[in-house]
């Protein structure tokens, strides 16, 4: 999800000057953007060697950790913002990590592929798992260990007493606020502890 408009849209949710923890920060592009354009500071968490290297090359602080081991290294509300951008679908302990995100950060921003986007529904209606630009993998060969929908996330957030501060969809870099569950390939949520 390195599309510039998508990144800009999510970056706009981060208050300027925030101290940010980016869970599953990839090559550090988002943190780099936040540091350069929004005067933020912070750290990325990554497990993949190549991504850790890419972050060091960019000059982005990166901590090599497996998120499935939890966030015990981080104290309550030790960050202004905790990001989970395209991370949730790779986690075994999604629910725990969601609660952890809200514990460590004053606010959490979560973005993930929305499985209820209409082309996916169409594909399922035809009896096949979707292969799209946003979910480009065959069902038998995918790094995603789960898929979920915009609505699913609302339910999970409510179950865990998280307050949704903002929620919308992103499609081709545009914000979708009308029927995002059907009309957007990416779901974006801004949450805090309720």
């Amino acid at each position, binding site marked *: 999800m390195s599309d510039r408009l998508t990144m800009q849209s999510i970056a706009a949710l981060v208050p300027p000057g925030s101290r940010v923890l980016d869970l599953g920060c990839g090559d550090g592009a988002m943190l780099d953007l936040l540091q350069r354009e929004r005067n933020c500071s912070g*750290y990325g968490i990554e497990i993949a060697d190549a991504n850790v290297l890419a972050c*060091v*090359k960019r000059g982005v602080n990166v*901590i*090599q950790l497996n998120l499935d081991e939890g966030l015990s*290294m981080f104290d309550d509300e030790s960050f202004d913002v905790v990001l989970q951008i395209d991370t949730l679908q790779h986690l075994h302990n999604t629910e725990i990590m969601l609660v952890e995100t809200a514990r460590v950060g004053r606010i959490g921003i979560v973005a993930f592929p929305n499985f209820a986007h209409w082309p996916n529904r169409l594909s399922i209606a035809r009896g096949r798992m979707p292969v799209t630009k946003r979910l480009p993998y065959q069902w038998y060969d995918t790094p995603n260990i789960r898929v979920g929908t915009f609505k699913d996330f609302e339910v999970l957030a409510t179950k865990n007493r998280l307050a949704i501060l903002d929620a919308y969809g992103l499609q081709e870099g545009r914000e979708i606020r009308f029927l995002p569950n059907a009309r957007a390939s990416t779901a974006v949520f801004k949450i805090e502890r309720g």
Partner: protein
Amino acid sequence: MIVTPQSMDFAEPLDLQSGASIRGYSLAYETYGALNADKSNAVLICHALNASHHVAGTYEGQENSDGWWDTMIGPGKPVDTDRFFVIGVNNLGSCFGSTGPMHVNPDNGKVYGADFPVVTVEDWVNAQARLLDGLGIEKLAAVMGGSLGGMQALSWTLQYPQRVAHAVVVASAPNLTAENIAFNEVARRAIVTDPDFHGGHFYQHGVVPKRGLRIARMIGHITYLSDDVMNEKFGRQLRERIDPAAALAAAQGLLARDAGRSVGDYLYSTQDVEFQIESYLRYQGDKFSEYFDANTYLLITRALDYFDPARRHNGNLTKALAPATARFLLVSFLTDWRFAPRRSREIVKALLDNRRDVSYAEIDAPHGHDAFLLEDPRYMGVVRSYFERIGKEIGSGAATPPVGAKALPVPGAAILAANAGAPA
């Protein structure tokens, strides 16, 4: 890269943490690359238990005299001496050129022996700072070390925060665990109980407590490797046995070269070398006992034991690291059980709590603690990239020739290099 060791003398007493002081000492060091005009490209390399100032390069006319971190440091290497002015220094109390227990105490004209003052990581850092003063370097672009060397790098950021821009701390820890101190104590007892030790004054008896040194080295070696690597390297292989007559015939060309060598059944002996691992450990122990000083071994393992910056803060490492302003890179290795990743994570957490810049790489290398001296591409890549960032910050100052100092004879350089594969 041909390099020449140098030495700097210090007449002024250095106050030590113990309350003692030492005067009239000298430090052996080497430098690689050129100091730039604004003296902003200096990198200090701190050594671990049995290494020295000979960090990189080779000595003129001496084969196998590579520095102990030659894979990491040199022209075009991750710590690029075409860009950085790199300094290697031998610590006080060591046995490779700097003043140590085998030298004469100027206060009484006698060899120090066991009376050499106990030195700590903090004392070494103070001594290194004086060396930098002598070289005219106010601020380091980076201080770097592995294991005990990493402890020195960390301590630099606490003792002289304004003099360090970056710290690279590899396979290290904020202090030793009980198990780690226990290993050191076994090694020390092996040395001290050797009848040739003579309470540390063995020099005047013309002997060396080699038995103790051998055992100390053997136990050290076990802890530097992972179980898996040791099994892969040696497994349960039995030692090759050599039939002397057949070996002689082979040497004379009468039989095939490997004639006379066989791996047979057990010897059913309790004292002969039976397994390859025994042979390896005995060889390493023998080699070590030929060049390493027994008192130095005691001093350096004690410095390891004592290091604990959180001690003055009721064990609170976050408070202890508060003075550090440097930016950090930490690296650990998953199979390193002597300086385990969780120990590096403690440092990372304390730096995070203090809102310091830190990156941390946890390398999935199989080699245990030894990995920090080996060439894992992920490890080398991260260090290289980190130093490239430092290089960009510095920009390009015009280079000046290295600072001169008196040349030091090269004592057993081949030994220093041969012993590169052994850290702590």
